[in-house]
């Protein structure tokens, strides 16, 4: 699903984002990306989304080589990846349903299928009764659920979460983790960057540890350490 081959990314001047990283993540896998701030987690995710190019090496996502991808194909590439962020990235002046519908609307889906899919996915994340609320009327955990719903409403084959529990208390985090786990069970590959030691240790999934831009550890059923 994800293939990083000897990927190096340097920012000018000579700041290393990633250095010679080779990682393979299989379809349907659940993987944690752990490491301190500045260890290269965000660079990894932004390279996946083709927000910028690697300085060296090649990246393949879902069988598509990102270096050979035309600019016009980038939006379609991003549609196949669902994204969840620490700060939710919800539109504050729109209702929950509109926020989720936004992802469908900008991809040009017909109104009828939007009307069908949005309540469906909000039921799935447990927000069926909060559809017409605005994000600021929701708790942080609920907002993150909206964000997950928006990421998953297109049923992408890959879901990328950048510290989704970073702003949440432990109990709420468990709820989000359960949601991501359920999404993974449907066959979706989930890659989650996190600082959350407790969560990583509890889940016993694959752990890829980054440090100083390098992969310092990669083990199945690993611990945060």
């Amino acid at each position, binding site marked *: 699903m994800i293939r990083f081959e000897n990927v190096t990314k340097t920012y000018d001047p000579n700041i290393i984002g990633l250095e010679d990283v080779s990682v393979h993540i299989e379809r349907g896998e659940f993987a944690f990306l752990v490491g301190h701030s500045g260890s290269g987690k965000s660079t990894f995710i932004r390279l996946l989304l083709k927000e910028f190019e690697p300085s060296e090496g090649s990246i393949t996502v879902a069988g598509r080589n990102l270096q050979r991808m035309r600019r016009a194909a980038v939006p379609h590439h*991003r549609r196949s990846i669902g*994204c969840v962020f620490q700060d939710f990235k919800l539109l504050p002046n729109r209702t929950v349903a509109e926020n989720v519908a936004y992802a469908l*609307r900008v991809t040009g889906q017909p109104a009828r299928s939007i009307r069908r899919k949005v309540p469906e996915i909000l039921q799935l994340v447990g927000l069926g009764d909060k559809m017409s609320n605005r994000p600021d009327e929701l708790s942080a955990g609920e907002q993150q659920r909206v964000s997950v719903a928006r990421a998953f409403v297109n049923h992408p084959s890959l879901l990328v979460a950048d510290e989704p529990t970073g702003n949440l208390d432990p109990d709420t985090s468990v709820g989000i983790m359960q949601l991501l786990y359920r999404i993974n069970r449907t066959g979706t590959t989930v890659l989650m960057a996190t600082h959350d030691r407790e969560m990583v240790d509890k889940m016993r999934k694959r752990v890829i540890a980054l440090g100083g831009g390098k992969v310092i550890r990669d083990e199945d059923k690993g611990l945060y350490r």
Partner: protein
Amino acid sequence: MRFRFFFSEALDSLTRNWVMSVAAIVTVLVSMFVLGIGAFVFFNLQNATSGVRNKLEIEVFIKNAASQDQINQLGDQIKSMPEVKDVNFVSKDEALNRLRESMKGHEDVLNALSGNPLPASYEIFLKDQNNIDSVARKFYTNPVVDNDISSHLNADLSPSATSMPVSAGDGTKFTAGMYFRIDNEVMRVSGDPNGDTVPMARAQVGTTAAAHGAHSEIVNTDGIKTGGETTDRVLKATNYILIGGAGFVALLAVASILLISNTIRLSIFARRREVEIMRLVGATNWFIRWPFVMEGVFTGLVGATGAVIMVLLVQNFFVNNIVEQMPFLGAETVPLFWLLLFIIGGGGVLGSVGSGLALRRFLKI
């Protein structure tokens, strides 16, 4: 569906940032208004000057002493010239009739005349107006042609004429008690001590041709009048006005574009969160751009519509009130359809260029 999405997003931006939007709209309005008024002035000048051009180009006055044979011979000679398109004989009676008609309401001026002082003439129309001078020159030495028309007329007509400079529309100074052309009529400006210049005023810009004495540059010889030089001068003046006006409009257009661009920049900034999310969920570049383009075009169109309304109001006011008082101005309104198309199109162009500029500089996708 898609269009509605873009439209509502654009409208949302416009109202959210309404102070800047209004500023941009007003700038577009002013520049398009100046453009519209310029089009109005240009249209009327064109009408006036092309009117002159299509009218008589050379008029050859015939001495009263000329015999009918000589007159016919001159006519044949003119007809045989390759440069001549058409020639028309105007008898003395006809000349007077025309003068009478053009001076309706001021017959008292004519009644002061004894007999018919007007000479017979040939009106010559050329195929190519550039030949005016060369053709006219051929008549300078013709014995039948009256090359001393002014003294002849003055002697006949207005011994008591006071010398009173008046001005035609193009600034040429004339002296009262002289003859000049108005809409193909030879007519005299009376030396009315009250300074009644109404007959003079009916001379449209550039239609005056023969004038008394040295006051007019357009008399090659007294007996041969050409309309070409006046027309050229009017056209030259028109060109200066046009260049100046175009420069002014260009400046205003640049200001509008920059203001629209700045407005769009602000709304890109205000919507950066939306833009970021759109990118993340895989919206195509044009999907992200369209609402901003529409916002710019909308700004331009609203401004242009305001300008059209103002131009129409000014035109109507001008045509109804001013032209009524001073009919010699003979202003006409620009055909509505073209005006609308011109201004609205201009507004749309300003808007799209402005938003294009902002998108290129501030919306990195």
